[in-house]
């Protein structure tokens, strides 16, 4: 067994370390493969199938994010089958989910010529509207694509709190707490690591949600300043998002060794005191 594998990506040989995925190989070869449920810091959930590629010899398409590249594999990322699958997946999501706060998906839909209007009004999986049951973040299941990222971040991949799960099945599947209790009554510790990984804004910090509702959320004028959290000695990096002289959101860089994008309730939400007394709050 060799330590390096050579994979053909769209006719170009790419050499990757053993254990690398097809997605790794594509990225190493400079080939763009769209992803949705995949995130570097999480276990591939394999759920969205947007990264499907064609591997010669395989009956079905394969998910690039989780399939380990094998020596001699011949991969096609732009074949008719691949483009059809991606277009349909994007259409399905566009028809069933509110993607207004998922600009990357909207761009991908345009790029693949996805037309969600073909499915008519109504129908699709049943969804519900935004749940505002606490001061820190909001859940809008109408925007949920069921990528499993939040469940993974709450569970084995980051927080180990296990406050949320996928409940029910099929078209009725949804992210839920036990018996759908409100978040403050669940095991949730409000670290917001689920919010950090949500690709569509189905999970959104309260400030952003309220400002968007009021029409005052303007990402283009926000500045992002990297600093180190002062609450304890761990040394988590913070990205402080500031608009009009006020902190509006705090995140953490996914590529930071200490946090991998995760924070605790203090780091992510404990900043309201910064403006205390300044604007009368």
């Amino acid at each position, binding site marked *: 067994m060799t330590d390096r594998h050579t994979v053909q990506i769209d006719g170009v040989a790419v050499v990757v370390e053993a254990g690398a995925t097809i997605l790794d190989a594509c990225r190493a070869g400079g080939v763009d493969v769209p992803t949705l449920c995949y995130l570097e810091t999480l276990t591939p959930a394999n759920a969205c199938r947007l990264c499907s590629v064609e591997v010669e010899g395989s009956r079905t398409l394969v*998910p690039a994010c989780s399939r380990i590249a094998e020596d001699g594999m011949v991969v096609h990322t732009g074949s008719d089958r691949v483009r059809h699958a991606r277009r349909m*997946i994007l259409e*399905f999501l566009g028809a069933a989910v509110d993607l207004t706060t998922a600009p990357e998906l909207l761009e991908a839909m345009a790029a693949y010529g996805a037309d969600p209007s073909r499915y008519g009004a109504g129908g699709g999986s049943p969804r519900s509207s935004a749940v505002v049951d606490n001061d820190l973040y909001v859940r809008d299941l109408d925007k949920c694509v069921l990528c499993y990222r939040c469940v993974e971040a709450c569970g084995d991949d980051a927080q180990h709190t*296990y406050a949320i*799960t996928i409940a029910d099945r*099929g078209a009725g599947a949804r992210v839920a707490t*036990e018996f759908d209790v409100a978040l403050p009554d669940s095991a949730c510790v409000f670290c917001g690591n689920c919010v950090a990984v949500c690709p569509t804004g189905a999970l959104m910090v309260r400030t952003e949600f309220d400002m968007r509702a009021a029409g005052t959320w303007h990402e283009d004028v926000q500045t992002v300043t990297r600093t180190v959290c002062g609450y304890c000695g761990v040394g988590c990096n913070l990205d402080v998002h500031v608009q009009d002289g006020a902190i509006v959101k705090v995140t953490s860089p996914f590529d930071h060794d200490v946090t991998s994008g995760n924070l605790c309730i203090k780091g992510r939400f404990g900043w309201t005191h910064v403006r205390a007394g300044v604007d009368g709050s």
Partner: protein
Amino acid sequence: MDIRLPAAVATDDERRAVDRILGPPTTGWEGGERRRVDGHVATGGHAARARRHLLLPVLHALQDDIGWISDGAVGYVCERLVVPAAEVYGVATFYGLLSVAEAPPVAIHLCDDIVCRTAGAKELFTALADTVGPEGSSDGSRTWHRSNCLGQCDAAPAAFVQAAGEGRRTVIRADLDRLAAAPTDDREPAYAVIGDPVLTARFGAADPGDLDAYRASGGYVALRRALEIGPDAVVAIVEASGLRGRGGAAFPTGRKWRAVADTEAAERLVVCNADESEPGTFKDRMLMERDPFAVVEGLTIAGHATGATKGFIYVRGEYPDAENRLVAAIEEAEAAGLLGDDVLGSGFPFHIELRRGAGAYICGEETALFESIEGFRGEPRAKPPYPTTDGLFGRPTAVNNVETLAAAVAIVAEVPGAANTKLFCVSGHVEAPGVVEAPFGVTVRELLTVAGSARPPQAVLFGGAAGRFLAPAELDVPLGYEPPSPPLGSGAVVAFGPGVDMDDVVQRIAEFFRDESCGQCVPCREGTVRQDEALRRLVAGSDERGLIDEIARVMRDASICGLGQTAAEAVTSAIALGLVGGAR
């Protein structure tokens, strides 16, 4: 793991139900009496979490005894198994036979699938709605739900009844009176044979509860031979026989056994997939009910051949009679030394554990079945890695269908014709619906004739809902594993006579997949819904063939598992044959 428990507290009855499976709690850490020492010594942890696989049996116990699963009961389950409440809820809501909403003691699941709905089920719905109330409502003692195929197509219409504290029962040829009172019938097996019987040889001839009768009719000859010639020779025999999986995927059984046997793993497992749920299919149920020792012997041989010392039988939750037969057979085999630490004095240890499904078609998919046994939602895994290297509990695992194991027994016992026989399930508009055992090469027309198809059917669905409708010329094609034979699927043959509303039938198939998709991957979760909607528009007069084809392509190409990959087969074949939507 630090688990936050729901505020509600379990009742004594609920605790008793859970303790029935887990035994009484021994420390305050797992929900028992808090002892002085518990303040100093923590117990549970890994040991408790290693019992996660008992989650589904515990949920079954609550459903069986109480009739539903309350938040208090979930809290106690969390304490006992150290499983987070949200995960327990996620698992419980995945399965059709578990209720997390307060429910009356009796739940009637009335089959609404393609065979039963053309055999009186629809009239029964009306009657139930009149007496009990609308679907899902309660009259204080009963509630009722429509169900997907219950695997009783030889005695349609069928129902499955869960009665809290009293057990579960199947009602065949259901009507209101029989739903209220009928005990489980000890019915005669409905079957026929073309050629010599192999798999059905004991049907009606040997008492399925009698081990001596099984042995007197050739039983356990195969296991003795296997122990004599050794695992390698057994695998070679099965390989040479050409036996292929009878569950639908038709994978060569010998190759599967060889792959598991060749692994280096210290522990390997064998699983009997008895979660038969394909609409129109009931052969495995009949085998388990009529010849349960053959299933037990087959799994023992598979264990011996692959080097596994433990086997699981995952039996469909809607099959109480089959389950009871298997439980009794396992007990008898243990008592007779045919299972246990030293099978037949050979030094080979083998144990079988029976697990019950809880109402999810997807759990017949082998990796979903693993997830279900392990105590998780029955969502299929990505393959590779394959079960033969990373299966149940991460161990190399050989999964075989009930009929496959029964055939393997006959093959190892050198029964003539053993490798060349197949069970078909003929139902719908035929005189004598039932299992037909026939050699490969038989045609669908011959199967229909044996089952007494008086009039030529207007359509035949072959292989189950995941199979397809046959063109008239295909009725005379010799059946086998190679083209031009249509894929055998589960071996279901459902005939629809003149006068059947095929629009209704095909829409019901689309509804089936919409209902049974696990919801994990986008192509299947959304595709099955959009296929269903587009089909309804097509039936109403709109030309949706192009869209349905496009949906079919993405489901076939990009779904995680076989459910999504085959969810469009029947629908697209019906459209291609002009069976649906008038003459479009």
